[in-house]
């Protein structure tokens, strides 16, 4: 089953052709890791999956990203609906300048989804990311009072609070200490029963630990896309073999 289908996607930043005819399938309820060296277009591909590239008016996009057989780049598509269904966990934790509670409650509030049970919803999401016990007695404290690792878990809770189907993670452990990073990795593994996770990482070892499916990119093109076992065990492309052997990159 496919959660997202990318077809002939091209992205230009001004005159720079950043993504070149990318076509990949993102499997449903699996962790897909997008790997490759810096500047190969990993984050651009990720942000193309929920139309975050729209925020940059220098960017031109052609091709299709199909979600439920609807091309999210079609003119009539509701972008807010796309971004509700395809959430993002950024590289650095970026809690909104409000309380811990309000960070998680903000999304359900704007969608009017809480049915008067906002406290229960916030508790559920904070428990899902293992933060509830640490913050239960200070929910009204500013989110910035948390440690960086806690902030990233809070951001994950905030992302999950609007019940997305797909969670995009843009090197979401890169700015964390190893223990916090492992904590987030554990959470992502636990999420895949319910969510499709797409994780951009430059860390091959992390991809080995987490990925069910791997997409390897090089200079704006997809070199290889395969199930993790096949990708790491028997990579087909010479470029992939060289990258995994750390000879290039």
């Amino acid at each position, binding site marked *: 089953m496919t959660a997202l289908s990318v077809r002939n996607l091209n992205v230009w930043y001004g005159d720079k052709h950043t993504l070149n005819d990318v076509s990949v399938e993102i499997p449903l309820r699996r962790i897909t890791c997008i790997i490759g060296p810096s500047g190969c277009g990993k984050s651009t591909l990720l942000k193309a999956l929920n139309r*975050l590239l729209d925020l940059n*008016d220098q960017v031109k996009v052609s091709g299709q990203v199909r979600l439920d057989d609807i091309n999210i780049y079609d003119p009539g598509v509701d972008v807010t609906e796309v971004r509700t269904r395809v*959430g*993002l966990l950024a590289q650095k934790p970026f809690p*909104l*300048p409000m309380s811990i509670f309000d960070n998680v409650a903000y999304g359900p509030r*704007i969608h009017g989804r809480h049915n008067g049970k906002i406290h229960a919803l916030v508790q559920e999401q904070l428990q899902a990311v293992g933060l509830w016990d640490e913050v239960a007695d200070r929910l009204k404290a500013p989110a910035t009072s948390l440690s960086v690792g806690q902030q990233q878990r809070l951001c994950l809770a905030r992302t999950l*609070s609007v019940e997305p189907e797909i969670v995009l993670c843009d090197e979401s452990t890169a700015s964390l200490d190893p223990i916090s990073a492992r904590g987030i990795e554990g959470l992502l593994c636990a999420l895949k029963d319910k969510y499709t996770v797409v994780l951009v990482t430059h860390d091959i070892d992390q991809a080995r630990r987490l990925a069910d499916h791997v997409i390897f990119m090089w200079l704006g093109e997809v070199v290889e896309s395969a199930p993790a076992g096949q990708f790491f065990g028997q990579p087909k492309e010479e470029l992939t073999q060289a990258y995994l052997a750390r000879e290039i990159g």
Partner: protein
Amino acid sequence: MEAEIRRDGAVLTPRYDAAPGRRPGTARVIKDHLARTGMVVISAATCLLVVLIAGALLIRSLPLLRTQSLGELLTSSTWQPSHGAFGFAPFIAGSIAVTAVAMIVAVAPAIFTGIYLSEYTVARTRTRLKPLLDLMVGIPSVVYGLWGILFVVPLVRDHVGPWIDGTLGQVSPLFRQTNPSGYGLLSAGLVLGIMVFPLIVAVTEEVLRSVPHEMREAVLCLGATRWETTLCVVRRRGMAGILAAVVLGFSRAFGETLAVMMLIGNSVQVPRSLFDSAYSLPALIANNYGEMMSLPNYESALMAAALLLLAVVLLFNVAARLVVNRLTARS
């Protein structure tokens, strides 16, 4: 001095202050001290300048303050220098009223324009509009004044005035067209509003654009609309800066002299209607300094007016700073 390698393989890099006989940093340290001292002196001189101006104005105001109490000066409406009566109430009321009209005209449109430029326009539009705003800030106030005389005064006199008088004038005397000349609070306030508009727009836009991009991404990725994202950005991060923009606009409007002087009518009276002519504090000083200076306490009265002007702007800025600090701490 070379690095020392210990037996365990650790490399000890020499520090400058640990190297006897080698203190090439001395000249650099002196330069550093000089630069720091220079900057402290310049900064202190700038602050001292305000104190010196206020001190000079106070000293020159003392002859008047010895003969009349401050309360009496601020509340009396009688301005008859030849009889030694120096009531500032009409000028204070004129300044407050014309500034209020300007702020009512300018603040909301300026904030929304700033939000539009920061949150909604593409870079190309922004780069075309911003020089236009900068140009508006740089237009000399005498040009605004002339434009007001040629365009705004006739507009107010022949169209806006009769219309407001015919509609709202029945509701409140504030809207009655009491002055058929067109020179008055509304004309001056409209032009003053147009003058402070680009200033508030520019500061609002700068403040909002300084909010990290990731914050917008975080909100948008929860499925928020552009407007919800803007509200979140403005309420949580931009409010303090927007308040600072409004205070800047207020200070500019309250202290504006020439354009107001050309349009407000310069009648010593407490205005009762939007169309009344009035007199502002800066206009009082600019129109009268150098004339009739032989009258006892006349110069002292004008100095007291200047001191009052300075005090109001300073107080407003300090109060706004306190509110900005509180808002910043909260966000």
